[in-house]
């Protein structure tokens, strides 16, 4: 019937998404150590931004929608930021609580529960 062509924004966004997907997958094999989570999350943020802007068409939506999403994102940053600040700056506990079922072969706490810094 009608000749439907995929709109350019959709096709370009899709291509970009799959490129980023492949990049993220490949990078997970490179040993980046502690940075690997940050890199993966940064790529995820880029992908999410593409989906939100062009699939969900936030670019052409009115200001109220943009503010709604910005408020949600901002609050999430506050929540994660102040929680992480607590955990990262906490004094190590004087002693660790005992594990519930101490297996016979378990070495004394294999991984100390103190923040690894």
């Amino acid at each position, binding site marked *: 019937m009608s000749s439907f062509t995929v709109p350019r924004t*959709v096709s370009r966004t899709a291509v970009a998404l799959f490129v980023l*997907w492949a990049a993220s997958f490949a990078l997970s094999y490179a040993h980046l150590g502690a940075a*690997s*989570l940050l890199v993966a999350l940064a790529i995820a943020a880029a992908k999410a931004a593409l989906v939100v802007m062009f699939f969900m068409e936030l670019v052409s939506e*009115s200001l*109220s929608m943009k503010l709604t999403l910005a408020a949600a994102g901002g609050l999430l940053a506050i929540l994660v930021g102040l929680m992480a600040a607590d955990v*990262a700056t906490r004094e190590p506990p004087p002693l660790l609580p005992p594990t519930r079922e101490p297996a016979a072969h378990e070495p004394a*706490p294999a*991984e100390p529960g103190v923040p690894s810094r």
Partner: protein
Amino acid sequence: MTAARSVEHAEHFESLERQAHAARLGMWVFLATEVLLFGAAFALFLTYQVQFSHAFRAGVAHNTKVLGSVNTAVLLLSSTLVACAVHALRRGDAKLAARLVGGTIALGLTFLVIKGIEYGKHFDEGIYPGGVGHYFTLHPIRGLAAFWTLYFGMTALHALHVTIGAGVLGVLLHAIVRGRLGRETAYRLEVGAIYWHLVDVIWIFLWPLFYLA
């Protein structure tokens, strides 16, 4: 066909445009709540990650990266299809829109099947939420239980969202097939589609947390 019918707006709205705007804004506000809902779980994950980074890396290493990554691709593709469906319906091509929405739902179900296979695999290995199962007695790492509890909690909640999203799209598909959704009322499909996209966005963040890093 659909263009012939003029579409009435609800009695308490001034115009159909206003009504469409209200529906979209309502969905965006709802999505904001979803962001915070999953955001709370993310905050828990990240703070536990800071405290038990060794255990969390062990958990990620044990997870099946290939299945998780295939599932990501499935959802990305489904998002692309539903975005095309919205464009098709806006041009009045209801038939194509119906097919594309049908494809989206099929991909959503594929996602759920793969997720189910993964869960089965975990149970076989003796990994249950709450640090229950023989896997945890073999690997007594402090914080490992928290990783798997969060994994099960967050992915199950996400799977629930996929199910709901597929249900919403199913209702919309039915309306398209019946001819109740056309060019003027394409905003309803839009509202359903942005919900589906959000489910995709959430998975985009879950994927690196549980499978990559």
